[in-house]
């Protein structure tokens, strides 16, 4: 019996004992991605992730639009984390256009960015819960996420794709009385997510399913170039908010969460700890934010850059370090925009994590990588 494998994949033809299984691209457990696994009985022998089903050509599209009209489509790769995915592009465009951002706008951006990080992680956690068959953990995060979505709606006027950050600040000032509402809802949100510990993270069933599965050692995590929660779960203390602070993160007290185990459990717990830290950052930012002042620098209608220049900026998104490289040639459109996305970097670790695991552990290992298919394909 022979297998017709797609050409160019890392898998080899194998003997009759081993079966090739396509998980996805329509399978709910893989997102818009195919994972080709070869299994011997219940154990995974080899695995080849096959992304690319939702390639949208965001980078090419950016070459035909000016610095402002690029904003709505560049936040589409991760709609739940749309402020963070746009952040490096906006920072880069500001440097190219030579704009100094008002202080209040920087704080508004930090608050929006931290709220978006929580919204993304709550969505991710809901899906992680349903992957492990924990229906309550699907319902609770999906419901509590509404608290933050409501805040983003008040702040930006849209529930998911905000188009709020622009070169020169943010689109609009905070609505009246926003600080009080934000503080009240974030405090309640923090109280709610602390309740997840008993039902999910300290639950013996979850621990039995995720402890010591898909272990990524510290050396491997660095060698593969993983970022974000995957890297921090393997014991590397690396967070761009601390290491390369952008906007006003250097004025805020940011604590990084690190775990040493490097297994699925650690990788699923780090984002939850990050959310608690985000609540702290939002409270600090609300306190330190200037109470009045401009939030946006007035730009000319079609801003042009000075000449042939390039800039690389990166931020810590909900999944890890997200970079944007912009080359400009002095026209109204950028010459080239390249997104360096964390999802794609974390995916590189997947084949090695799944080797030797049971097939039933595949969803928990795969989704613990904090992977977002649309962002990886961009």
């Amino acid at each position, binding site marked *: 019996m022979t297998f017709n494998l797609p050409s160019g994949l890392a898998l080899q033809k194998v003997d009759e004992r081993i079966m090739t299984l396509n998980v996805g691209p329509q399978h709910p457990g893989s997102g818009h991605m195919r994972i080709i696994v070869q299994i011997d009985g219940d154990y995974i022998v080899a695995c080849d992730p096959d992304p690319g089903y939702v390639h949208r050509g965001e980078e090419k599209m950016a070459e035909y639009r000016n610095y402002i009209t690029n904003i709505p489509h560049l936040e589409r790769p991760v709609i739940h984390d749309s402020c963070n995915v746009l952040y490096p592009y906006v920072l880069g465009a500001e440097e190219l256009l030579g704009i100094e951002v008002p202080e209040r706008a920087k704080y508004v951006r930090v608050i929006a960015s931290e709220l978006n990080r929580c919204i993304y992680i709550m969505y991710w956690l809901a899906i992680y819960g349903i992957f492990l068959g924990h229906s309550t953990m699907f319902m609770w995060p999906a419901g509590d996420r509404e608290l933050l979505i409501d805040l983003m709606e008040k702040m930006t006027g849209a529930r998911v794709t905000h188009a709020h950050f622009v070169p020169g600040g943010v689109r609009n000032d905070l609505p009246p009385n926003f600080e009080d509402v934000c503080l009240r809802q974030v405090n309640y949100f923090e109280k709610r997510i602390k309740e997840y510990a008993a039902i999910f993270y300290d639950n013996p069933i979850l621990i039995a399913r995720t402890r010591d599965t898909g272990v990524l050692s510290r050396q491997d995590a660095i060698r593969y170039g993983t970022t974000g929660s995957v890297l921090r779960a393997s014991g590397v203390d690396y967070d761009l908010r601390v290491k390369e602070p952008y906007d006003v993160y250097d004025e805020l007290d940011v604590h990084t969460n690190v775990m040493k185990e490097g297994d699925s459990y650690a990788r699923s717990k780090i984002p939850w700890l990050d959310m608690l830290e985000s609540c702290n950052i939002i409270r600090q930012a609300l306190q330190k934010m200037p109470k009045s002042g401009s939030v946006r620098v*007035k730009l000319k209608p079609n801003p042009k850059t000075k000449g042939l220049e390039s800039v690389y900026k990166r931020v810590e998104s909900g999944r890890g370090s997200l970079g944007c490289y912009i080359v400009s040639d002095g026209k109204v459109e950028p010459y080239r925009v390249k997104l360096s996305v964390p999802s794609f970097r974390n995916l590189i670790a997947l084949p090695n994590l799944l080797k030797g695991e049971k097939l039933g552990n595949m969803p928990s290992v795969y989704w613990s990588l904090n992977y977002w298919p649309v962002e990886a394909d961009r």
Partner: protein
Amino acid sequence: MGTATGIIRALNSGIKHIAMKRFTLRYPEEKLKFVGDGYQFDPSTGVGIAGLKGRHMLFHDHCTGCQLCSIACEGVAEAIAMVKVPEEQKQNKKSIMPQIDYGKCVFCGLCVDACPFYALYMTNDYELSSFSKEGLIYTPAQLQVKPYVAQDSEIQISDRGATHG
């Protein structure tokens, strides 16, 4: 901590929620409350005013037919087309006004930022579904109408949990 204790604690955490209030918004009966009358923009300062980015509203007496909103939309959704204003309606110099196709619009509001004459704002109206594609195209006369949006529900937080009250 033993396995049995852990499972009992997990169950207990869920059981506590029987006494908590329901958080779900019962949508068609209850509708969310928004801040303000929708997203607006002040061209003199270059800063917007917070509000929901919903259906647009066009002020015919301010619109000059300059096409800046249509140009702003070109790279985004190409939803705005400049159409001829019928003779019985109020005319401007070029007698053209924007017509918006909500089948294409992404509600980013960059057209509102582009308008220098306070003519185009966004409103709280978000219920735009239609049975036909033509029904999603709003003519300048339709955009002139100020929508009525019911707003009766807001997130309220008490000791028994958050709820839409």
